[in-house]
C-alpha cells in the first residue's frame, strides 16, 4: 500500500507541475464564469443555463484530463523508458499501475473541486444579483447542494474513464488508447439504445451481438443526472448507490485486466 501511495504522490506532483491540466482547469473556470454572461441573454432561463453550462464544463474538461493524462501515464513511461528506473526498485508492476491510477484520481478530485468551487461562486454571485421576482421563478435554488449529487456521479464516471484509458494504454499506442477511450465514452452514453435494438432490427444474430456489446461496454448514461438536478428533480439515493456500485465493479475489472496485461509485458 505504501508503494502505491508513493507512486500516487509522484503522479500528483507531476500533474501539479504540468501546465496541461492547469490550462484545462483555468479554461473550465473561465467558461463557468462566462456562463453568467450568456445567461444574461436569456430572460428567465439564466439559472438553468449557468448550471447546465457549468456542469457540462466540469464533465467535458474533467474528461479531457482523464483521457489525455490517463493515456500518457503509462505510455510516456514506457516510451521514454523511465519505467526501467521504477520497475527495478522494490515495486511490483501492479503497485506501479495502481499508484498511477490513484495519482490521477487524486489529480481529478482536486481539479474537479476547483471547478466546483468556481461554479458555486458564479451561482452565489448570480443569486445575489438577481431580483426577488426572478428568483421565485427558478425551479431550484441557485446555490443548490443537490448539484453535488451530479458532481459526485461525474467524478465516478471520470474514474471509470481513467481506468479505461489506463487499460488501453497498457497494450496499445497513445493514439489508439485515446481514440478507443473517447469512442467508448461516446458509445457508453448511448449504450441503452443497444439494449432495445430488437425493436428496430429483426436479425437474431445482430440483436444478440448488440446485447453482448451492451453488457461489455460501460453504461455511462446513469452517471448523467445533470438534467434532473438543474430542473430540481429529485435523484433517488438508490440510483446513486447502484451507479456508484456499478462504477466500482467496472473499475475493479478494468484495473485487474490492466494489471494482468501490464504484468506480462516486455519493455524492450
Amino acid at each position, binding site marked *: 500500500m505504501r508503494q502505491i501511495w*508513493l507512486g500516487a504522490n509522484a503522479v500528483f*506532483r507531476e500533474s501539479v507541475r504540468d501546465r496541461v491540466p492547469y490550462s484545462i482547469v483555468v479554461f473550465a473556470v473561465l467558461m463557468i464564469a462566462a456562463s453568467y454572461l450568456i445567461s444574461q441573454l436569456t430572460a428567465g432561463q439564466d439559472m438553468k443555463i449557468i448550471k447546465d453550462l457549468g456542469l457540462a464544463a466540469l464533465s467535458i474538461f474533467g474528461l479531457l484530463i482523464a483521457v489525455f493524462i490517463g493515456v500518457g501515464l503509462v505510455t510516456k513511461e514506457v516510451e521514454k523508458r*523511465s519505467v*526501467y*528506473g521504477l520497475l527495478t*526498485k*522494490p515495486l511490483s508492476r501492479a503497485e506501479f499501475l495502481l499508484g498511477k491510477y490513484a495519482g490521477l484520481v487524486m489529480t481529478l478530485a482536486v481539479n474537479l473541486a476547483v471547478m466546483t468551487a468556481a461554479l458555486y461562486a458564479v451561482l452565489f454571485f448570480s443569486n445575489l444579483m438577481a431580483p426577488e421576482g426572478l428568483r421565485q421563478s427558478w425551479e431550484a435554488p441557485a446555490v443548490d447542494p443537490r448539484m453535488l449529487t451530479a458532481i459526485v456521479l461525474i467524478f465516478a464516471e471520470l474514474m471509470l474513464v481513467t481506468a479505461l484509458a489506463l487499460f488501453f494504454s497498457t497494450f496499445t499506442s497513445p493514439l489508439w488508447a485515446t481514440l478507443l477511450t473517447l469512442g467508448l465514452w461516446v458509445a457508453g452514453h448511448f449504450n441503452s439504445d443497444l439494449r432495445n435494438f430488437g425493436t428496430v432490427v429483426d436479425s437474431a444474430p445482430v440483436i444478440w451481438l448488440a446485447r453482448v456489446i451492451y453488457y461489455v461496454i460501460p453504461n455511462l448514461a446513469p452517471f448523467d443526472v445533470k438534467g434532473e438536478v438543474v430542473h430540481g428533480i429529485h435523484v433517488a439515493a438508490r440510483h446513486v448507490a447502484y451507479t456508484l456500485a456499478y462504477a466500482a465493479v467496472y473499475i475493479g475489472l478494468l484495473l485487474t485486466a490492466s494489471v494482468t496485461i501490464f504484468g506480462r509485458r*516486455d*519493455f*524492450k
Partner: protein
Amino acid sequence: MPAIETEALTKDYLVGFWRPRPYRALDGMTLSVESGEVFGFLGPNGAGKSTTLKLLMQLIFPTSGSARILGSPVGDVAVRRRIGFLAENPYYYDYLTAEELLTYFARLFGYTSAEAKTRVASVLDQVGLGAERRMRLRSFSKGMIQRVGLAQALLNEPEVVFLDEPMSGLDPLGRRDVRDLILGLRKRGCTVFFSSHILSDAEALCDRVAIVAQGKLAASGRLNALLAFELQGWELVISNVPEALAATLPARFGSVTSLSHGRVALKLAADAEPDRVISTLRAEGASVESLNPIRHSLEDFFMQHVRSAPQRATGL
C-alpha cells in the same frame, strides 16, 4: 552461492508486421558471477548485452531458461532491495529535481523521510552532483543524467550493481570518476556486473569478463586466463641511429618502423634475447629508448571471438 546465475537464458522477439518471425536476441546464455567480483559483459552493439540485463531485471521475460540473483529468482520483488541498476542512456522525470527523484526512489526502498534525506545527500555528493541537487532534471546534460542514474543505482547500498554501459555520455573526467566508483564498490565487497563495448574499461576494472556476440556467449573467464599471456615478441625503440647501422636494420630485424625525432621501432622475436641485442646496438652507436613485451590484448581477443561468432538464428 554465486551472486548472479543464468541458465540457458534465451529470448526471442517477433519481428515483421504482416508475417511476424521469431528473432533470437539471446541464445542459451549460461553465466555465473561470484560474490564480490567485478564482471565485465562485453560485446559489440546489438550483441545481446542489454537483452541479458533486461532479463536479469525482469523488464522482459525469457523465452526459455532461468536466472537468479543472490539465490532468488529474478522476479522476486524482495531481492530488488539488495540490488542497483543503471539502464543504458537512462531517462528520469524532467519535472523533478535530482534530490526529489532520489528521495522518491529512496522511499520505495523503505527509507523514512529523514533517512532518505541523509542518504540522498550522501549519494549525490558521491557522484559529484551535490551542488546541482535542487535543479530540475530537464536542465541536466547527458553526462549529469548518467551521474543521476549512477546515484539511484547506489542509493540502497546494494550488494549487486548492474550497470549497462555506465561510461556512456561521460567525458574523460566522468569516466575516471566511474572507474574510481566501481573500484570503490569492489573494495566494499559489492558485486558489479557491467556491460560495455569499451575494452579498456574492462581491462582496467574486471576480475572476469564474458564476451557475447550474435546473442551467444563467445568466451568467459579470468582476464589472465582468457588472454594468452605468453610472450608474442618485443618492441625495442632506439634513437641516434648512425647511418651505417640504419642501413643494416631491415636485414637484421625484419620489422623496422621509423618514428618521430629520428627514433626507430624494431620488432624482435620472442626468443631474440633482448639484452644481447641491446648491447650490440649500443656498441654500434645507437641509444635505447624503450623495450616492451608484446602480448595479446583484450581487443585482439575480442575481435577474434566477435568475428568468428556464428550468425544468430532468425525465423526459428
